[in-house]
């Protein structure tokens, strides 16, 4: 039954070749960067492919680790990712639960009230002024509070809650548990898969966020990792770069290329390392959301 014709066999060969090439194009930039970050200055600027360093050097990493600001960025990113995800999961679940209940009075109004914000917003300037007016400027809370409930995640969680049979909760309610008790002790334990998926989205979003830091944060002690990278790589701030390279003029132990590559690797490696183990949860979440319709 699985016999292939000659044409199909040829097609399979080309298909596998094409897909392999595509994956090489996806992975090569990371390999290149890793190789450059581990190279001596001369090796780093050699034209052509970099699969591994021909002349090996750990200096760029040493300088990166010695530079305080990247660790401040790291610490703040970890704080916002941990705190932001925890608070978001609590708020998303707490809001999704009532919305999943048929007997919630005026449920369609509240749902519309929330869904509307996905399609119409005040825009950048009004939001900026609001943040200013409520005193969140230069506060770490600005990383967490405005993105506490991503509406898409809220709707996915709500859909998940609606699939949980009411009977499971009824027994608890007969025993005198209120809505909140039943939510905490029955619904949440059953919702671990969706909590994991939504939580991972939140972690990745926090890890990658930079625009809020650029808009609202001036204090260098509250900078996040991506904002630090942006200064170093995108806006090419010479002051930052020189401070990080920290070498006497004429001595070349590291170059802007190697130091940038090392900084990029240090901040991206956590994602690259855990990615193979968690990517299936991301996909699962998308499917829960999009096939529900």
């Amino acid at each position: 039954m699985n016999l292939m014709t000659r044409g199909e066999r040829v097609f399979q060969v080309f298909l596998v070749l094409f897909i392999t090439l595509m994956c090489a194009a996806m992975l090569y930039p990371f390999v290149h960067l890793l190789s450059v970050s581990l190279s001596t200055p001369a090796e780093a600027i050699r034209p052509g492919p970099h699969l591994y360093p021909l002349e090996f050097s750990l200096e760029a990493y040493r300088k990166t680790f010695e530079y305080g600001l990247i660790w401040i960025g790291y610490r703040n990113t970890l704080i916002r990712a941990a705190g932001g995800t925890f608070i978001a999961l609590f708020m998303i679940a707490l809001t999704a639960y009532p919305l999943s209940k048929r007997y919630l009075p005026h449920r369609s109004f509240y749902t519309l009230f929330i869904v509307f914000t996905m399609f119409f917003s005040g825009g950048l300037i009004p939001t900026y002024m609001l943040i200013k007016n409520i005193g969140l400027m230069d506060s770490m809370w600005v990383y967490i509070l405005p993105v506490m409930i991503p509406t898409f995640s809220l709707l996915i969680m709500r859909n998940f809650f609606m699939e949980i049979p009411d009977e499971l909760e009824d027994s608890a309610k007969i025993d005198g548990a209120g809505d909140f008790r039943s939510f905490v002790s029955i619904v949440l334990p059953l919702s671990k898969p969706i909590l994991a998926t939504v939580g991972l989205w939140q972690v990745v979003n926090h890890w990658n966020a930079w625009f809020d830091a650029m808009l609202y944060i001036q204090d260098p002690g509250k900078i996040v990792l991506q904002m630090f990278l942006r200064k170093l790589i995108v806006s090419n701030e010479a002051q930052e770069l020189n401070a990080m390279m920290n070498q006497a003029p004429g001595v070349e132990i590291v170059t802007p290329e190697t130091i940038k590559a090392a900084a990029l690797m240090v901040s991206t490696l956590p994602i690259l390392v855990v990615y193979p183990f968690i990517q299936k949860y991301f996909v699962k979440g998308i499917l829960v959301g999009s096939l529900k319709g």
Partner: protein
Amino acid sequence: MSFGISAHNPSGGKGVIQHAMEQVAKQTPQGGLVMRKPSVWRTYRKHRGILLMLVPGLLFYVIFHYAPLYGIQLAFKDFRIMDGISGSPWVGFDHFRTLFYGSDQFPLILRNTLIISFLHIIFGFPAPIALALLFNEIRSKLFKRITQSISYLPHFLSWVVLAGLLTTILSPSEGILNYLLGLFGVEPIYFMGDPHYFRFTLVVSGIWKEIGWGTIVYLAALASVDPHLYEAGIVDGASRWKQTLHITIPSILPVIAVMLLLRIGGIMEAGFDQIFNLSNAAVSNVADILDTYVYRVGIGQFQYGLTTAVGLFKNVVGFLMLILANYAVKKMGQEGIF
């Protein structure tokens, strides 16, 4: 532009909202035993537990999503810091007149926004569909699983990180791409700095980042195609190619149509994160879009009134486009998003 974070919304939001609305529709009273409508007060008291749980979430939406709507009036005002939002004098449609007739700048960024958006749709939209069809033809399960996982990877990195990667890869002096082109005798190309190539760079890097992730929706649709159709096709002697053309593609056409219309609904979004991190002064004539303009002129030069007007224009057009797109989806007999 939605503050970097929420810009990473995992998919277009199709289905979820539709589902939300359907569920709402179902809850309307179905007649029957209810004789007297209980007063709102009594219903609210009866369900106070669950309503109380909703309060923090509603507060969040009021503060962070509805309060900024109040600031929209700045689009019709001459904002003065001392007077605040409500105290500043009204100027009617002055800002809009300035935008459309005052200089060439706004028409230019509006054109850039639409051109870049169109390019993303024309080239970026079919790419994941083609890739999904290819993935679907792979016989080896393991090979398929591994290559799919690899293709999702760039989706999870920020444009800040990718800007760092791309500058290295696309560099005219050391970049691998120009090195490879050089082997064929092509002169080095400044992909990131040449206005002739920059939009091309945007489109290709956009495809590179999202092509794998974009296949998920289509792969799910492909998995749900009725296998009997293929069996019938084989009996009729249809080749794999014929099967793809006459069975597979027609089966996923509704999904493609919905995704396309939603994408067109988002025409005003040309990709702030990407452009803001990849562009530079050399290419600003071809790369400056509505969102980058609002940031630069609004936040950078304190022109709050003018740039609020730009934001309002963008939001209203975007909103209308979505409603139109949704109407078109429904006209086709498909489920819309609302």
